[in-house]
C-alpha cells in the first residue's frame, strides 16, 4: 500500500465509507508495517483534533463542578443518545426491580468468611473483618484491599479471593477477575464455572485451580487438580486444554501462547486453620499470600522454618542468635504472643547472616515485595545491609557478588531501598532515622508501575517514572538478610548489628493498604511496636 493509498483508505475509514475487504487490507497492513501505524496514528490524531477543535468540544471547568460536565456532556442534536439514555434508565429500573424481587425470593449467594485482618469492599462499602454471615449476590463487585476472603456456594464450591484483588460477579458461577488472585475449588466438579480475565476465559472441568491477573503481563493459571479449557475472548481458535504439571503453573498470553512458571501455593489446605486463627500479625501476613514467611521462632535450630507449606527453609549463621522467650522487649517483637522470638545479628562480617530466604521461582527483579521488623541500638554510624537479593554473574560462587536490590540503614540511620536498574537505578530513603533501639516495620514493594518504601506502615518513598524494571531472578544463597554483597562490602557497607523478626517475601507488589494492615495488626496485640 502506497502512502497515497494509505491516506485515502484512512480518510475513507474515518468517513465510515470503507468496505470490509478494504478494512481487512488496512488492518493487515497496519499489523506488519510500523511506518503505516505511525501514519495512521498521525492521521487519526489530526482527525480527532479536528473533531475537538471544530465545534464538538465542550468547555469544562477546572473544579469539582466540572465533573458533571465531563460525566454528563452530550451533543444536543444527538437524538440517539437521548433514546439510549431513556433506555438505560428503563434498564436500570428493571435491574433494580429484578434485584428487589430476587432479594425477596432469597437469591443464590456466596457466603463469605474472612481471614482476620482482611479489609474489603462490596459495591463500594469498605468493610473490616467482622463476625456474622456475609453474603455476596449476583451483580456485586468485590474488592479485597488486603487479606483473604473465602466465598462458598451452597453446592460446596469454594472461591478464595486474595487481595489486592477485584472481581465482578455478573453471575456467581461466572466471575470476572479484573486483577489479583482468585482460586476456585469446585468440590465434586458437578458445577460449571468460568472465570473471565482481560482477554481470556477459563472454564473448569472439575477442578481446583487459581487464576492471577497481575498488574502487567499475561494471566497466570495455577492448576492443582482436574482439567481446564482456556479460550481467548476474541479468538476464533480452539480452546487450550490445561492439565496439571508437577510444580508448574501456566502463563497464558493474549495470543494464546502458554509457558510454564513455578506453581503457586495452594491456599485451600491451610484455609480453615487461617480462618479460625486470631487476628494478629501472623494471620495478617499469611492472609496476604506471601511466597515465603520466616517467623524466626525456631531457637534451637539452624534451619529457619518457612510458614508457607512447601516453602523454602532459611538458614542462620553462627552469629545470628535467637532471642529466648522471657527476655522481654529485648528479644521479642511486641506485637506477638510470649512464645515469639527474634534473631540478633552481631554484625560479624562473615557469620552474622540469615540466608536462603528464597521463594519458589526466585525473587523477581520485575515485581515483588518484602517486609520485616528491625531494631538497632544507637551505637555507631555504620551503613548496614538489611535484606539483600543479589547474584554472581558467572554463578561461580555461593555468595552474591553484586546486590541487585537491597534494603539498608544509612550512616545517619535512615531506612533505604535500592534497585540496580541499568541506566535508571532507584533509591528510596526515609527522611528520619530508624536507629533508636525501637522496633520498626520496614517494607518495600516493586512492580511495573512503582517502587515504594514503607516504614511503620506509612509510605515514605515512591518512584514511578523509571520506565520499566529489568528482568531477572535472584535465588538461593543470593537472597539473604544482614550481610552485604562483595561489591557493597568493598564500598564500606557492613553487616547489620541488631534484631530482626518476621521476614516475609512476596512474588507480587504489595499494596499500600496491605502494608498498613500489617502494621495495624501488630499494633493490635499489645503496646505500640515502637515503644519499649
Amino acid at each position: 500500500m502506497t502512502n497515497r493509498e494509505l491516506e485515502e483508505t484512512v480518510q475513507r475509514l474515518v468517513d465510515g465509507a470503507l468496505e470490509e475487504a478494504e478494512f481487512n487490507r488496512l488492518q493487515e497492513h497496519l499489523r506488519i508495517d510500523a511506518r503505516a501505524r505511525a501514519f495512521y496514528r498521525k492521521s487519526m490524531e489530526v482527525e480527532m483534533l479536528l473533531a475537538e477543535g471544530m465545534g464538538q468540544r465542550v468547555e469544562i471547568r477546572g473544579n469539582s463542578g466540572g465533573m458533571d460536565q465531563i460525566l454528563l456532556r452530550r451533543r444536543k442534536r444527538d437524538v440517539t443518545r437521548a433514546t439510549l439514555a431513556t433506555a438505560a434508565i428503563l434498564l436500570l429500573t428493571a435491574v433494580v426491580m429484578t434485584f428487589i424481587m430476587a432479594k425477596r425470593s432469597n437469591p443464590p449467594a456466596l457466603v463469605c468468611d474472612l481471614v482476620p485482618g482482611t479489609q474489603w469492599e462490596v459495591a463500594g462499602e469498605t468493610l473490616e473483618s467482622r463476625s456474622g454471615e456475609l453474603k455476596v449476590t449476583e451483580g456485586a463487585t468485590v474488592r479485597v484491599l488486603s487479606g483473604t476472603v473465602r466465598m462458598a456456594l451452597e453446592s460446596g464450591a469454594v472461591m478464595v479471593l486474595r487481595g489486592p484483588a477485584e472481581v465482578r460477579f455478573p453471575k456467581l458461577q461466572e466471575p470476572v477477575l479484573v486483577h489479583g488472585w482468585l482460586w476456585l475449588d469446585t468440590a465434586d466438579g458437578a458445577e460449571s464455572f468460568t472465570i473471565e480475565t482481560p482477554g481470556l476465559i477459563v472454564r473448569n472441568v472439575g477442578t481446583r485451580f487459581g487464576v492471577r491477573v497481575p498488574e502487567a503481563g499475561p494471566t497466570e493459571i495455577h492448576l492443582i487438580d482436574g482439567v481446564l479449557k482456556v479460550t481467548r475472548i476474541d479468538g476464533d481458535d480452539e480452546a487450550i486444554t490445561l492439565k496439571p504439571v508437577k510444580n508448574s503453573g501456566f502463563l497464558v498470553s493474549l495470543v494464546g501462547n502458554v509457558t510454564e512458571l513455578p506453581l503457586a501455593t495452594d491456599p485451600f489446605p491451610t484455609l480453615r486453620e487461617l480462618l479460625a486463627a486470631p487476628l494478629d500479625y501472623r494471620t495478617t501476613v499469611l492472609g496476604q499470600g506471601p511466597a515465603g514467611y520466616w517467623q524466626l521462632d525456631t531457637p534451637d535450630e539452624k534451619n529457619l522454618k518457612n510458614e508457607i507449606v512447601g516453602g523454602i527453609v532459611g538458614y542462620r549463621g553462627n552469629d545470628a542468635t535467637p532471642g529466648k522467650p522471657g527476655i522481654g522487649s529485648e528479644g521479642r517483637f511486641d506485637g506477638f504472643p510470649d512464645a515469639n522470638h527474634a534473631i540478633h545479628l552481631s554484625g560479624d562480617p562473615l557469620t552474622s547472616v540469615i540466608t536462603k530466604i528464597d521463594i519458589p521461582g526466585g525473587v523477581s527483579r520485575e515485581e515483588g515485595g518484602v517486609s520485616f521488623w528491625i531494631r538497632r541500638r544507637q551505637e555507631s554510624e555504620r551503613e548496614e545491609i538489611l535484606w539483600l537479593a543479589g547474584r554472581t554473574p558467572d554463578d561461580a560462587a555461593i555468595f552474591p557478588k553484586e546486590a541487585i536490590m537491597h534494603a539498608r540503614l544509612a550512616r545517619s540511620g535512615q531506612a533505604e531501598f535500592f534497585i540496580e536498574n541499568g541506566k535508571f537505578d532507584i533509591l528510596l530513603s526515609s527522611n528520619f532515622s530508624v536507629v533508636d533501639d525501637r522496633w520498626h516495620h520496614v517494607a518495600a514493594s516493586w512492580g511495573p508501575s512503582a517502587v515504594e518504601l514503607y516504614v511503620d506502615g506509612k509510605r515514605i518513598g515512591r518512584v514511578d517514572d523509571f520506565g520499566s524494571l529489568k528482568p531477572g531472578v535472584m535465588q538461593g544463597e543470593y537472597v539473604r538478610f544482614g550481610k552485604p554483597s562483595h561489591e557493597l562490602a568493598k564500598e564500606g557497607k557492613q553487616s547489620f548489628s541488631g534484631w530482626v523478626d518476621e521476614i516475609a517475601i512476596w512474588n507480587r507488589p504489595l499494596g499500600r493498604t496491605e502494608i498498613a494492615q500489617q502494621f495495624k495488626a501488630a499494633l493490635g496485640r499489645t503496646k505500640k511496636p515502637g515503644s519499649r
Partner: protein
Amino acid sequence: MSSSNEHDLMREFVRELTEHQASLRSFVGYLMAGAQGVSDVTQEVNLILWEKRGQFEIGTNFRAWAFTTARFVVLGHRRRLRKEGLLVFDQDLIEQLADEWQAQPDEYQHRLATLHTCIEKLADADQALLRVRYSGHGGIERMAAKSGREGSSLRVRLFRLRAALKQCVERELAVEGGIS
C-alpha cells in the same frame, strides 16, 4: 485521611481528568478506527475513573492509568461491535496501537493549539467546510445542495484539507523542535 486532604485529592483528580479529557477522547477514537460510539466509550472511561477515584494518588501517572483503563473499555466495546458484525480492529492490533500511542509524549494540547493556527491560515470557505464536517450541524450533502457544488467535489476538497492540515501541524511542530 483528613477532609482537607480528601478535598485536595478530589481537586487534583478533577484537574487531571479535565486536563486529559481531550487526549483521552482522541486515544479512544484512534483505537476504535472510525467505529461508532467514541463519545459513549469515553464517557464509560470517565465513569470508571470516577468510580475508582479512591485509588488515585496525587503525583502518580494519571495519564498512564486513564489510558490503560480506556484501552480495556475499548476492548470491551470492540467485543460488542464485533458481535453486531461491525468492522473493528483485532485485539492484538488494538493493543499494539495503544502501546505505540502511550509511548509518545503527551503533547496533545500543544498539537491542538498548532492545529488552530493552521486552520486560521485556510480560506474562509475551507474553514466553513471543516466546520460543517466536524461540528455536526449539517452534512456534506446539505452543504453541497446549499452551495450548488457536487458532494463528491466537497469530499475531495475535504480530503485535501485534511492532508494539508496534517502536514501543517507536523511542519509547525518540527520548526519548533517539538517533534522528532
